């Protein structure tokens, strides 16, 4: 059903990291919003070439860490000083010093969960289906391929202009990917 198929975007392949990097700079300067570079490994400098801002994952991790530390301290105070106080060796019922090691570990535990879940949330993963993953040439992205995709949902998108831009940037095998 090629007539009724919805376009996902237009895909171009590049030979090297440098070629993909320079092409990304051109796509960025052309003012596209919904587009992406696909590489087998993170390429140094690509975030700047794409005009990406600093990732927000840190905030999720910070939130997790604060939650971990606070809940550790509160938990130990509640258990050992409030709900059922047990005197042990004349030590104080609650002291931040003895409560520190478990709270410290909980900071790290929940901070790590924050980082990972934040990363997955920001990336909208896990995702069991993606139009690109059906594309036969795109499978090389995890091997040694470098790709740029401009999505059809971009407000500036037109198949002709996008194709022209990617070809002039050095893209090979420029072709439309269907949803």
């Amino acid at each position, binding site marked *: 059903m090629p007539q009724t198929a919805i376009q996902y975007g237009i895909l171009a392949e*590049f*030979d*090297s*990291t*440098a*070629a993909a990097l*320079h092409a990304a*700079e051109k796509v960025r300067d052309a003012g596209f919003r919904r587009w992406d570079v*696909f*590489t*087998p*490994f*993170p*390429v*140094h*400098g*690509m*975030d700047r070439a*794409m005009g*990406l801002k600093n*990732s927000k*994952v*840190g905030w999720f*991790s910070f939130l997790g*860490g604060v939650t971990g530390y606070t809940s550790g301290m509160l938990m130990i105070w509640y*258990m050992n000083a409030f709900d*059922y106080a*047990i005197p*042990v*060796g004349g*030590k104080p019922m609650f002291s931040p010093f*003895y409560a520190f*090691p*478990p709270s*410290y*570990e*909980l900071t*790290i*535990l929940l*901070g*790590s*969960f924050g*980082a*990972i879940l*934040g*990363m*997955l949330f920001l*990336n909208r*993963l896990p995702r*069991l289906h*993606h139009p*690109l*993953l059906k594309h036969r040439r795109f499978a*090389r*992205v*995890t*091997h*040694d391929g470098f790709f740029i995709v401009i999505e059809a949902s971009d407000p500036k998108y037109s198949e002709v202009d996008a194709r022209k831009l990617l070809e002039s*940037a*050095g893209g090979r095998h420029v072709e439309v990917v269907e949803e």
Partner: protein
Amino acid sequence: MADTAYTGPSAVKLAEPPAELAREPLVLNQRSPGWLSDTVAGVVEAKTPLWWWISFGISFPTMIMCFSLIAYLIGTGVGVWGNMHPVMWAWDITNFVWWIGIGHAGTLISAILFLLRQRWRTSINRAAEAMTIFAVMCAGIYPLIHIGRVWYGWWLLPLPNANSIWPQFRSPLMWDVFAVSTYFTVSVLFWYVGLIPDLAVMRDRAKTQIRKFLYGLFALGWTGSNRHWSNYEKAYLILAGLSTPLVLSVHSIVSLDFSVSQLPGWHTTIFPPYFVAGAIFSGFGMVLTLLLPLRKVCKLEEVITMRHIDLMCKVTLATGSIVGYAYGMEFFIAWYSGNPYERFTFLNRAFGPYWWAYWTMISCNVFIPQLFWFKAIRTNLVIVFILSILVNIGMWFERFVIIATSLTREFLPSNWGMYHPTWVDILTYVGTFGLFCTFFLLFLRFLPMIAVSEVKGVTPQADPHHPLGGAREGGHH
């Protein structure tokens, strides 16, 4: 930046750096990213080799023996072990501390070396992290089974017991529960996050439907999008930043199990840093023991190069020397403190009934690693392999010397005694090797043992400003 269409360089002439600045490359022979995928994934995709079946054929029954002996212990009681007054902590806690220490090299390689921008870590971090996880699993068994009435193990969790009494957090043993369980969880998370792009590599290469489905499921739909990489790299950096204080705290807290007590030989402030150094020392020993044969049988000599081995030997040398310093300092403080009990404990360690354990420890941990000063030793793989095993023998004896010999001679001579392991002690310990090796072999069989995407990222081809990465000659650097 050139504006014309890109044409790949047909031949690249690299400007040779001066000989004294040249570094050995991390991947030999300028291999391409595709070659790395083929080689590393090839290990998993090839027909199961004979050495794998032989190793599995040994380790799997050994693991079953471990579980059977644990069942015997639980069914009969801790009396089947040699633990007896005054040595109530013996091989169980020795093995716990030893195994958990081995795990530390994995986290050091994956987290601390990452923060220090040591790019050579990429070839070894995956296998080392797997080692961490399986070593912590072996370690985690012991605290659970040594409590005697295993069905009360849940008392370690922050839950009220039948009398509504909560666990008592003034005890370092409770800190230990949090430290070890956090360590295990975060190690698994870190390992899995590193695996996601490589699981996508495996998914895209899979030939059968079932492989494609399973690798695809765990790859979470990874596409290699740079918007994803950006968040991914930040998350990885944060995890490394969190794992670093974690790994330093875990063995510190394990050491507090001892140093918070009043026992001479345990009650010392040097324990936390000294335990951490020893842990990294033994962990690097284990990484070398595992990777030296593996790079050979899996034909990965171009990825795990002589430079990697050389650097690991140097870390072993450095941490071994720190451990040696700590032994010396313990002795000095035992004398300088003027505490007769402390002084007696240390003289008893070196010249008492367990002198042989003490001197095994000193030889393996202090003297033998000094051989790594010599380049001829570091480049002789057979000797490095033997030394790496001796390191772990030495570290096991260190744990034994600290735990058991301190307990045999405490304050009251009427409280003195000796410790003798039973066959159950010995075979359970042997069994944990079966558990470790079984899991490690399964890991080798089903997951890429080298972090493919990370190694690709440190090759010159990955650098857009390097001629091999496609930058034109004379381009800016």
